[in-house]
């Protein structure tokens, strides 16, 4: 490549980008390395190597401090919520994106506004409502909240996706006398499969890392999710000065997310940008 004076900004920014990514990777490498250190070794500084590679830190946080339990809780709550969100969102998104009826644009608008509602503005009434129904500190309560708070964005995402699917097949089916249920189940759902999967992955990842609702609505160890569980480890582990354990805890929370994401990244990004592609 020939050096061009006018391309200097490009070289500089590329350098910055490489530094940015390099720093991120280095940070992660350091995190993993440190998770094998004892607390004493961590205090000895960044450049000390762990004296022996042992899984003590990991085993301690997974079992004694219950991180495994928190993971299972999250997996349970988040999987059910994701399925529920999709089941509830797909038909309404289909109807709102395809048919005009009384109030349809009003409802669409209502969901779009809902995306911008900060949870903080509603969690106090929700807390009182949920504790009135004895649904705080329960799987059901958390699934309930996760489902309803994910609805607006999922519906918005799926509406954008359904709009990209041409309606010729449905028109043909309609002329042949298919009912709405039939054309939704037999034509739309199969065609929308990749969109539904993208939306599902997106909802799953967002709920997996959710923290605020869990913090407000869950206080017993039994029901803690992964984020909340890691948060509760902070107090326990720093109280005893167990930084090694805390490093291992962070790795255990980050690593599965990265693995899951790197397998499904393409679908994930497709889900996120479905509305942007068409301008």
């Amino acid at each position, binding site marked *: 490549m020939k050096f061009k004076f006018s391309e200097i900004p490009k070289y500089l920014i590329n350098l910055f980008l490489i530094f940015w990514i390099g720093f991120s990777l280095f940070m992660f490498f350091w995190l993993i390395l440190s998770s094998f250190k004892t607390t004493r070794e961590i205090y000895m500084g960044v450049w000390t190597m762990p004296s022996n590679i042992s899984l003590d830190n990991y085993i301690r946080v997974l079992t004694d401090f219950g991180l495994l339990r928190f993971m299972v809780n999250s997996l349970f709550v988040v999987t059910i919520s994701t399925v529920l969100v999709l089941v*509830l969102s797909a038909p309404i998104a289909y109807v709102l994106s395809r048919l005009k009826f009384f109030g349809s644009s009003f409802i669409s608008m209502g969901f779009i506004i809902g995306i911008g509602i900060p949870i903080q503005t509603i969690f106090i009434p929700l807390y009182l409502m949920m504790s009135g129904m004895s649904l705080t500190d329960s799987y059901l309560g958390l699934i309930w909240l996760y489902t*309803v708070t994910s609805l607006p964005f999922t519906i918005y995402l799926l509406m954008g996706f359904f709009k990209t699917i041409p309606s010729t097949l449905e028109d043909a089916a309609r002329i042949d006398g298919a009912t709405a249920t039939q054309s939704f189940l037999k034509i739309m759902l199969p065609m929308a499969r990749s969109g539904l999967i993208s939306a599902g992955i997106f909802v799953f990842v967002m709920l997996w890392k959710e923290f605020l609702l869990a913090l407000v609505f869950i206080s017993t160890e039994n029901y803690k999710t992964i984020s909340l569980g890691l948060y509760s480890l902070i107090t326990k582990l720093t109280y005893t000065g167990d930084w090694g354990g805390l490093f291992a805890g962070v790795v255990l929370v980050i690593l599965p997310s990265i693995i899951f994401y790197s397998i499904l990244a393409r679908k994930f990004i497709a889900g996120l940008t479905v509305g942007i592609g068409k301008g």
Partner: protein
Amino acid sequence: MEYRSSIFKKRYKNFILISTIPVVTFYVIFMIFPIVQSLYYSLFKWSGFTSYKQYIGLKNYIDLTGDSLFLQSVLNSFKYVIFGSIIIIAITLMFTYVISNYKSKKLKDLVQMILFVPNTISPVALALLWGFILNTRWGLLNGVLDKIGLDFLQRGWLGNDYIFGAALSLLVWIHVGFFIVMYIAAADRIPTSLYESAKLDGASSWKQFTKITIPLIKDVIETSLVLWTIFSFKIFGYLYVFGAGGAGADAPPPVRNISVQLFLTAFGKRTPINRLAYASAMAIILLILVAILVYVIRNLLMSAETIEY
């Protein structure tokens, strides 16, 4: 195709009713109605956990104007909006410039995916990680500075002087990866013919970027500004956990945005204030501020002409 014919309408009616009514009801009861309830609670003196509840009109709102911790959290939220948007949008634009010029589609995808990773990870884990890096005694940053002979730059990053910038740097690191995906998707939809004719005219890649790409992704830049404004007010986990500095204490006032202050007022464990009605007033202020800001930003930017291509 518009479905005006009455036969179609009738055939679709049941499906429309079944798919919309339950979801809309569920949504209104658990997301819209609580806003009204927050407004109602905010007019009372009430801890939320006792039956003692006294109507006091707007007194909570008047008290908020003299609550220095709350005012600081409002100011901080604005600081996150302003500094965050400038830094994040500048960096994201720079990265869009180089990444959208990559010839290889694979490389383009890979870089975006790596930058996006922090957005898929629990905020608690990221806040802890950032705390580890900036730890004064054994953190990575001070360790690296020491190693490369820049030890005079070492600071107590988690002390009150630097903690706002430290928290902001965490948010920047995460959200550049979020917005880059939007920017690149938008840049990719620009027809290549525009660039080809610019190239024929001898325009440099920088010129092409500023004269073609930026004007044509303006709508996405605007969306990112609106989103960042909302985020600045509602971001919670990163700030709440990062501010605790790994010790599980309450986040110190310099990092708190309205969300953190609101949570601590309503449910804070260390200082059990438990003023649910007072916190409800904060919630209403939060909602109003977000709504006004989004409205203002949209109008400011919308007024500039839109470009068709």
